[in-house]
C-alpha cells in the first residue's frame, strides 16, 4: 500500500522523459488499483447488506446464492409488520427528534457562534469544546435522575434535549469557523447606513450565512438521526428511535438476519440519500476549522 501513496505524490514529476513516461503508466495503474480497492472496501459491505436484505434466511445461509438469487421483499414485510412493532412510528420518531433538536439548536447556536466569532469570546468557546470531549454517559446518569424525578422519561422532551447536546456544540463549531471567514466590512457598512448591530446581523449576515447554516443543519440532522446511546436510555416504547428499534430483530437465541439487514437498510437509506445530494456541504462541515491548525 505504501507504494501507492508515493506514486500518487509524483503526479507530474520531472525525471528524464522516457523514465517519466514509463513511470506515469505505472502511476496510472497504481492509482487505478488504489481507487478500485477504495470502492470495493467502502461500497462492498454496504452492497452486501443491501443484497442480504432481499434474501430469505435460507438464501443468506447458502454461499452459492451470494450474488445470484431471487430477491424477495419478505424481510421488509417483516420490518413493517404492525404486529412486530410500529416501524413507521419509529421512522417518524427519529425524524421528529432529529428535526426538533436541529431547529432548536440552530436558534440558540447561530447567534452565539456569531458573537463568539466576532467578539473573541474564547472562554465561552471553551465550554463548547468541553461539550465536545465529555463522554455522553456522564451526562446521561444525571439526566436520568432529573427526568425520572420529573416523571418525564419516555416522553419526547428528554430525547430532544439530549440530542441537542450533540447538535448544539456541532452547530456552534461549524458556524464559528464560518463566521471567522466572513468579512466584517459588509456589516460595518450596513451600520454606517443606519442599521443597528443586531439589525445588521439579521438583515446582512444571516442571509450571507445560508451555506454555513445549511452545512450545520445537515450534519446536525445526520448525527442526531444516528445517535444511539441517548435514545437507548431515555426513549420509551412509543418514542423509540430507529437505531434502538433495530434490536427488535435480535432474538434471545437466534437472529433474523434478513429482517435485521432490512431494518439496517431502512435506518441508513434516508441519511445516505441526504448525503448523496448534499455532499459538498457535509465535507465542508466535517473539515471546518481542521485546516486552520
Amino acid at each position: 500500500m505504501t507504494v501507492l501513496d508515493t506514486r500518487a505524490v509524483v503526479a507530474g514529476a520531472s525525471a528524464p522523459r522516457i523514465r517519466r513516461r514509463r513511470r506515469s503508466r505505472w502511476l496510472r495503474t497504481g492509482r487505478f488499483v488504489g481507487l478500485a480497492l477504495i470502492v470495493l472496501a467502502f461500497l462492498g459491505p454496504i452492497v452486501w447488506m443491501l443484497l442480504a436484505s432481499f434474501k430469505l434466511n435460507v438464501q443468506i445461509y447458502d454461499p452459492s446464492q451470494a450474488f445470484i438469487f431471487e430477491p424477495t421483499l419478505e424481510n421488509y414485510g417483516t420490518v413493517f409488520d404492525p404486529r412486530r412493532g410500529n416501524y413507521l412510528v419509529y421512522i417518524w420518531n427519529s425524524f421528529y427528534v432529529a428535526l426538533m433538536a436541529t431547529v432548536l439548536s440552530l436558534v440558540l447556536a447561530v447567534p452565539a457562534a456569531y458573537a463568539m466569532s466576532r467578539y473573541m469570546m474564547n472562554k465561552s468557546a471553551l465550554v463548547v469544546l468541553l461539550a465536545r470531549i465529555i463522554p455522553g454517559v456522564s451526562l446521561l446518569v444525571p439526566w436520568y435522575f432529573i427526568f425520572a424525578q420529573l416523571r418525564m422519561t419516555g416522553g419526547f422532551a428528554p430525547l430532544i434535549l439530549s440530542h441537542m447536546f450533540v447538535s448544539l456544540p456541532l452547530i456552534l463549531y461549524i458556524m464559528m469557523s464560518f463566521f471567522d471567514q466572513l468579512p466584517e466590512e459588509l456589516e460595518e457598512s450596513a451600520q454606517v447606513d443606519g442599521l443597528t448591530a443586531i439589525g445588521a446581523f439579521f438583515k446582512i449576515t444571516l442571509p450571507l450565512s445560508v451555506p454555513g447554516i445549511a452545512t450545520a443543519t445537515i450534519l446536525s440532522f445526520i448525527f442526531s438521526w444516528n445517535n444511539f446511546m441517548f435514545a437507548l436510555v431515555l426513549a420509551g416504547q412509543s418514542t423509540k428511535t430507529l437505531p434502538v428499534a433495530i434490536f427488535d430483530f435480535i432474538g434471545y437465541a437466534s437472529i433474523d438476519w434478513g429482517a435485521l439487514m432490512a431494518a439496517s437498510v431502512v435506518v441508513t437509506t434516508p441519511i445516505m440519500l441526504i448525503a448523496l445530494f448534499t455532499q459538498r456541504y457535509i465535507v465542508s462541515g466535517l473539515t471546518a476549522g481542521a485546516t486552520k491548525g
Partner: protein
Amino acid sequence: MTALHTADSVGLGERLSRWADRHRKWVFAGPAIGFTVLLLAVPLGWTLFLSVTDSKRSVRRAFDFNGIENYLGALTDFERFWPSVGRTAYFTVAALVFELIFGMIIALLLWKPFRGQGFIRTVVLLPLVATPVAVGMMWRLLFEPNIGFVNEMLSWVGIPPQPWLADPATSLTTLVFVDIWQWTPMVALILLAGLTSLSDEPQEAARVDGANDWQRFWYVTVPLMRPVIVAAVLLRGIDALKTFDILYATKGKGGGSSHDVETLNVYAYGLSFDYNEYGLASAVLILFFLIILAVIWVLQMQRKGRDS
C-alpha cells in the same frame, strides 16, 4: 456605533433595542451558554457529587456520602476497571494509527483531479454518514463465523474460518477494524482539505533541488501538514476514546459475556444502566474524563513543544 442613534423621541421599544444592541454579545451568546451550562455543567456537577455517594439500584433511593470509596474501589479493581482502561487505549491507538495511514493514502489518491473523482468521493462519504448501529449489524453478518462473507472470501485462498466477533481473543481487534472502516474517510477528508490548501511552491523548490517523490512527501508534505494531522488526531482520537455504538450493538451488555470489548465507556454505561451502580459509575466517569483531559493536554503540549 450607538452614537448613530440620534432620534429624540425615545420610546420603550427603542430603549430596549438600544440596550440589546449595546449588550449584543450576551444577547446573542447568552441563551446558548445558559442552555449548555444547564445541560452540561449542572449534570457534570451532579456526576461529581454522585461519585462520592453510595447511590445504587434506584434513582429514587436515598443515598449517603462515602468519600473517596468509589474512586478507591475503581482504582484497585483489576478485574473490570483496569482491563477496560487497557482496552480503551488499545482500541483508540490501533484505530488512530491505521486511520491515519489509510486516510493519508486515500487523501493522496484523491488529491489531483481525475475522471470519476466525484463518484469516489461519494463512496468515501457513505461509511461516514451511515448509522453506526446499522454498520455494527452489517459487519456482524459479514464476520459471522458460519455464514459471513469474510470467512467465505478467506476460504477462496485456503484460509480456515475464523471466529472473529465470537471469540473473546479476536473480537476487540475485529471491532477496531470496523471503526477503521467507518472513520478512515473522516481522516481522509480532513487530510485532503489540508493537502488542497497547501501551496505548490515548497514542492517545486524541493523538486528543483532534486528530491525524489518519497523525500518530497516525507520532508516537505508531512511537515507542512503537521497542524492538520494533529487536528485530525485530536478530533478522531476524542471520538475513538468514547466509542460506544458499535461495541454495544455487536457485543451487547458488558462488552460480551467475558467483557472482551468492555472499554471505559461501555463499562461506565453498564455500571449506570445495566447494574444501576450510580455512585461507582460516576466515579469511573470522572476518572475517564480526567484521562481524556490528560491525553488532550499531552497532545497540546507536544504540539506547542514542537512549534517553539
